[in-house]
C-alpha cells in the first residue's frame, strides 16, 4: 500500500493538492493533512455521523469515502460555518441557545447534517427534522435540544428570508 496518488481537493472554497495513499480516507485527509480537526471520527463505519461533511452540498460520512473519491467535488466542513472573525452563524447560535451540545464531540456532524438538510428542505417541520437528526448519534443530550435548535433556526430563516 505504498503507492501514492496525487489528488486535488476543494475544501471550504480553497484548493489543495495532496499526495496520498489510495486507501486514505477523506476524514483523515481533512483532519490530519489539512488540519481541519473540527470534523471528528466516532466510529469509522458510517453509523455515528460525527464525521459528517457536505459533499457538493449533501451530507456525507467522511469516514466512508476515500479522499480520492472527493476529487472534483466541493467539500464543506464545520470550519466553514462561522464568519470571518469567528462569529457564530445562526445555526450555531441556535445550538448554544438551546444547549444542543454538551461535550461537543458529535456537534460538528450535527451542524453539517442540519446545514445540508435545511438548505435542501427549508420548510422542514419539527418532526421531519427529528427524522433527519436520527441519522447521527449523540451520547450527551438526549437529542431533544438538538432538534429544538435546528427547528428554531429553520423557523427563524423562514421568517427572515
Amino acid at each position: 500500500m505504498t503507492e501514492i496518488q496525487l489528488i486535488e481537493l476543494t475544501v471550504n472554497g480553497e484548493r489543495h493538492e495532496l499526495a496520498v495513499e489510495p486507501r486514505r480516507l477523506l476524514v483523515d485527509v481533512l483532519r490530519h493533512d489539512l488540519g481541519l480537526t473540527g470534523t471528528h471520527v466516532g466510529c469509522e463505519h458510517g453509523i455515528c455521523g460525527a464525521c459528517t461533511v457536505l459533499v457538493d452540498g449533501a451530507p456525507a460520512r467522511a469516514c466512508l469515502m476515500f479522499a480520492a473519491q472527493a476529487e472534483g467535488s466541493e467539500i464543506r466542513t464545520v470550519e466553514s460555518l462561522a464568519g470571518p472573525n469567528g462569529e457564530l452563524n445562526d445555526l450555531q447560535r441556535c445550538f448554544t441557545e438551546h444547549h444542543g451540545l454538551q461535550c461537543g464531540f458529535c456537534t460538528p456532524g450535527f451542524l453539517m447534517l442540519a446545514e445540508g438538510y435545511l438548505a435542501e428542505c427549508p420548510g422542514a417541520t419539527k418532526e421531519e427534522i427529528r427524522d433527519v437528526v436520527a441519522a447521527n448519534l449523540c451520547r450527551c443530550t438526549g437529542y431533544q435540544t438538538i432538534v429544538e435548535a435546528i427547528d428554531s433556526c429553520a423557523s427563524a430563516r423562514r421568517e427572515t428570508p
Partner: protein
Amino acid sequence: MSTREPGFRRDGSWVGASVPRREDPRLLVGRGRFVDDITLPGMLHAQFVRAGVAHARITGVDLAEVLATPGVVAAFTADDLGLADITAVLDRPPHEFVPTAMPVLARDKVRYVGEPIAIVVARDPYAVEDGVEAAIVEYDELAPVMSDTAALAPGAELVHAEAPANTLVDVSLFATEGIDDVFQNAPTVVRVQAKTGRQNALPLETRGVVADWDDRDEQLRVQTCTQIPHQVRTVLARCTGLAERQVRVTVPDMGGGFGQKCVVGREEIAAAAAALRLRRPVKWIEDRRDALTAAFLAREQRYDARAAFDAEGAILALDVDIVCDMGAYSCYPFTAGIEPLMASAEMPGVYRLPAYRVRGRAVTTNKAPTGPYRGVSRPQYVMVMERLMEKAARALQLDAVEVRRRNVITVFPYRGVNNITYDPGSYRESLDLCEQVLHDEGWYKVRSDSQESPDRVIGIGYSCFSERTGYGSGAFAARKMSVVPGFDISEIKMDISGTVVVSTGTMSHGQSHETTMAQIVADRLGLDINQVKIVQGDTDRITYGFGSFASRSITIGGSAVAAASAKLTEQLREIAAHLLETDVDNTELDGAGGVRLRDVPGRGMSFADIAEIAYLKAHLLPKGVGPGLAATASFDVMGDGTFSNATHGVVVELDRGTGGIEILRYVCVEDCGVAIHPQVVEGQCRGGIAQGIAGALFEQVNYDDTGQPLCPSFMEYKVPTAAEIPDVAIHHLETPCAFTESGAKGAGEGGTIGAPAAVLNAVNDGLRHTGVELDDTPIARESVYRALEGTYRD
C-alpha cells in the same frame, strides 16, 4: 422546598442563571481540541495486538513480521516494557476482597477477547494497523467462564488463580437482628429475580492518549482524555518507576466519559511507556471496534430480592443477594467492588426500611472488565426496589404510587437501616407532582380509554429514587477504599488586571464546569463571569484532584472554588481597609469588581487598584498580607453526603404486532437543590434519561459461549437515536443542601438512575391484563410480544 422555573437570574446573581456556556464557541466552530486533534513533531501511532480468544495461556508471541511491516518502528510485549502491574485494592479482609493484578500488557495469560498483548508503533495510523495484523500469538486455550453462574459453579475454571470460586468481592452487610422472623410473620412477601444487561458507557469520543518525553522539563507529558488525571499520573509513575513530578498529565477537551474514562486504562500506560522508551511522541486512539469489545463495560448484575410488607403496604424488611459480573479485572482505583458495594450500601433508597440484609458479590469472568458507568448500580437496584413496590401493590391490591407514598422518607434527616443519614429531600413531593402531571395531561384517561380498544395497549410507570452525591472522604472511607477520593482543592489567583484564574481538581467532560464553576466564583467575588477563568485537567497546575465522577463536581469542587474565593475576598478587604484607613469590618465587596466602605458606599477601590498594589507596590501592603493575591482552599464532606432525588413518570404504548415499545410521554420531577445553571441541569437530566432508556430497551453487550463478543460494531450494539429517545418534560423542585457552599446537590446521574425502573414499570403496567411480569433489562421485544399474544413462558 420551593418550586421555580429555570432560566432566570435570581437577585442579580450568576448562580441560578442559564448563562451562555463558555465552552460552546470553540466547540461550535470546530476549534475544540480533543486528543486526536493533537499532533506533535515526529509523532508515531500505536495500536495493540489483542487477544483473539477469551481464556488461554500465551505460549508464544512472534512479532518478527510486525517489525518487518513497512512503516512499523517498534513493537513491545510485556517482557520488553517491564512495567509494574496495575493493582487496585480495598482495605477489606481476604474473605471480603481478593486483590488481583492487571498487567499493562498480558504476560502469561489472556482473560478476555481484546486484551492487549503487545503494542505496535508505526509512522502512520494505517501502517500500524498493517503491523498489528502481522502478529502471531499462540495460545494454550482454557475453558472460558462466560457468566456469573458459570463462574460460581463448583469446579469452574479459575480466571485468576488467587481468586477461589472466581469471587473478587463478597460482603454480607447489615443483617438486622430478627429479620428472618419479620419475613416469617409478614402478611405479604414479594420477590424479584432480575438480571440486567452488560452495557458500554460509550462516550462518542473513544479513549486516547498522546505521550512524549520532554527533555527540557524532564517529564513524561501525557495528554489523555481521562476523568481522573491525578490518578493516571500516580499509576503511570508507579508502572514506569518515574517520580510523580516526572509525569505531567493534561486533559484536552473530552468527548464524554460517563465513567468509562474514570479508571486508568492499560493502553494509555503502554502508549506512554512506548513514548518513554522511544523518546518520540506516541499517539494511541482507540478505534470503535476496540471501544465496543475491549474498553471497560458495566451494569451486568443479577438480583434475588425479597421484601416483606404489612397489610397496609408498609415495607418491613428487605433481603437481597446481588451478584455482579465484573469481567476479567478489577479497575483502578475503584476495584471490582464498585458495583456490589454501591448496591449493597444504598439499596434501601428513598424508603423507610426497618430491616435489611444484603450479600453483594463481584465475580470475575472472561469478559472485558467492568468500570464505573453513570449511576453505578443505582439504575439496577432502583429498578429492583421499584419492582418490589409494584409487586407489593398488586399483592395487596393497592395503587402502586400509594404504596410508595406510604413508604417514602418524609422526615429528615433520616438515619437509615443502612447506617446512612439522608439529608432533606422532596421524595414525597416529587412523587405527588409527577403523578399529578400525568393526570393533568390526560394520560390516565388515555390508558382507561385504551382498555376499551383491542388495538391500543398503554402502560404508565414510575420510579421514585434518590441519588447520593457529594461523596466525601467519609463516605468513601466507609466503603473501605484504599484510595479514598473525597476532598477537592481549589487555588485562586488574581492578576494585576483584577481578573481571576481558579483551579479545580474536578474534570469536566461535557458537564460545563468552565461555565458553572465560573458562575459560583463570579458571585462570591462580585465579578463579571467573563473575568473568571477556570483551569482543570493539568497535574502540574493543580495541586491534587480526584476528577469528576459520582456527581461530585459541583457539590465538592463547586464548594472548593467558593471557599477559595472567600479566602481571596478576605485578602482584598484587608488590603483595601489598610489603604483606605478603615477597619476590615467596615469593608465589603461592591458587587462590581471592587471593595467599598460600608459606612461610605461611594468610597472604595477596584480589584485592579488593589491588585496593582499587591504586585507592583508591595511596600504599601499591610503587614502579613501578600505580596500577590492568591488563596488555596479545600472542601470535603466527612458525613454521608447529600441526596438529590427525583420521580420519573413514563407512558408507553406496546405494539401487539411486534412487541415494540414506544414511549409516548416522559415526565421528570427532579430536585438537585440549588441549580447553578438550570439549563445545564436539564441537559444532564435529558442526557441521563436517554442513557437509562438505552439500558432499559436497547443496549446489551453479548458474547457467544466461547467468549467472542457479538457486538463489535454499531450494527450490533444498538445506540438509540432521536427516533427512539422521546422529549422529556422536566419539573423542578428545590431543597437546598445545607452544607455545600451554594446549596447545590449533584445532578449528573439521576436521569440514568431513574429511567430503567420507570420504563420497566410502564411496560409491566401495559402487560397487567396478561398476568406476565418482566423484570430483566433490556426488555426483550419477544417477551412483550408473547405476553400480549398469550404465549409467554418464563
